[in-house]
């Protein structure tokens, strides 16, 4: 398969103006590419900049320099310096992200939280609902919780809602930040299955997995990031 994402000379620094202008160099001249159907695992100790890299790829962090190109709607698109609406279009169609924590929206039911990425792509309500229900069932979320807002759920339940949302639509490129962290064995296996299915469908996966068994089961390649930041992260 061809490359779906290509990263060149990517650097990320944080300048903390409120703390005497301290500059943290977190990512330095990273280079890598990921093909469709391939899983790249980010490797390195805590504070090496793994989550920072995922957030930079997703556009939450602004790169200091370098290039992030993705295959979007049949063309290469440079994300560094792209207009917000271009980034949002990429997030709708091309680039998925399973974050470490679910950002809860008050009052919105779990089912609606999960369905949202599909509705944003213009799927019908019925089609979205069917897919969402099958994911929630596979991830062992009891049906009685589906209509409730996930704000009061346990950490593991929230994480599974987050995963269902992340796998709701097929993504050409999928970023995963410790999706199995707070899950028991059976749910961890469901997430592994979902990742395998995404890869089979041709997705490029880039992920952080602290669980070694998960890493061994899914990784095609590792990106060693321990040579990166020597300084601690701001948060």
């Amino acid at each position, binding site marked *: 398969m061809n490359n779906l994402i290509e990263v060149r000379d990517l650097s990320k620094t944080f300048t903390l*103006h409120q703390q005497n202008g301290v500059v943290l160099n977190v990512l330095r001249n990273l280079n890598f590419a990921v093909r469709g159907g391939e899983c790249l695992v980010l490797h390195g100790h805590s504070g090496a900049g793994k989550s920072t890299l995922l*957030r930079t790829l997703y556009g*939450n962090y*602004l790169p200091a320099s370098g290039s992030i190109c993705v295959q979007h709607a049949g*063309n290469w698109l*440079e994300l560094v310096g792209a207009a917000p*609406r271009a*980034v949002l279009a990429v997030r709708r169609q091309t680039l998925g992200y399973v974050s470490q924590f679910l950002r809860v929206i008050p*009052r919105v039911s779990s089912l609606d939280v999960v369905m949202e990425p599909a509705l944003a792509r213009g799927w019908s309500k019925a089609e979205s609902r069917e897919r969402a229900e099958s994911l929630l069932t596979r991830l062992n979320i009891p049906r009685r919780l589906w209509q409730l807002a996930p704000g009061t759920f346990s950490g593991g339940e929230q994480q599974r809602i987050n995963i269902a949302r992340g796998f709701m639509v097929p993504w050409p490129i999928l970023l995963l930040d410790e999706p199995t962290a707070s899950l028991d064995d059976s749910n961890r296996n469901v997430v592994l299955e979902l990742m395998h299915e995404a890869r089979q469908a041709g997705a490029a996966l880039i992920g952080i997995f602290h669980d070694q068994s998960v890493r061994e089961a899914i990784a095609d390649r590792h990106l060693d990031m321990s040579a990166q930041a020597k300084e601690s992260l701001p948060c």
Partner: protein
Amino acid sequence: MNSMSDLKLKPEPLLRVSDLTRLYGPEKGCDGVGFELYPGEVLGIVGESGSGKSTLLSLLSGRCAPDRGVIDYRRNDGRWLDLYSATEAERRTLLRTEWGFVEQSPRDGLRMGVSAGANIGERLMAQGVRNYEQLRAAGIAWLSQVEIDPLRIDDLPRTFSGGMQQRLQIARNLVSKPRLVFMDEPTGGLDVSVQARLLDLLRGLVRELDLAVVIVTHDLAVARLLADRLMVMRRSRVVETGLTDQILDDPQHPYSQLLVSSVLQP
């Protein structure tokens, strides 16, 4: 390649603003603001009180003329209109049809002396709808759309709670199917429990109706939920602009960093 996929996405901006300036004193007002807004895009304007957010909103919505600068709006028929070269009548028509304005206080945006149904019907009547049944049907449909019991259609807004009044104001604005809506702290005066409900409603409507929105807020959580991108204002100038997530997670300007880090995390 960037522009190619964008062209397919959204052909032309709805609003083009350049060098928009109106100063009441040094660093008071709005100085040299420029941006483009596309259909369906939600732009949040954040900053402390007195930074010029409200002045900017007044200028954009045709309520007060700038000292200099241009606002071009692409109308429904595709023709561009230079807002402040247009006649007063053209501007007023625009504000009643293709544009909406949601005030912070529903008392400023509603007619308190007439029924909820009449509030909703007013814009339709201004557009020439005279059929009573049609106006009534629109009133009922929009009340339920904004989650107000349609049986309240003949009640006066003053008998409504603050949250209901705000939802009625939204219905009154959206009934004419505007393409661009300005909002000034729409959740500002409401209890937190009511805010969440209103935000959820607004999110849904914005997507369903493909509305372009310019929203002024000092609440960064509201900005995160509603806005695609943000402009941070300080002392009449825009100090930073970008994707909402980026401004809130990785602010670059010292003032934006101060603004984001000053928020208490519950």
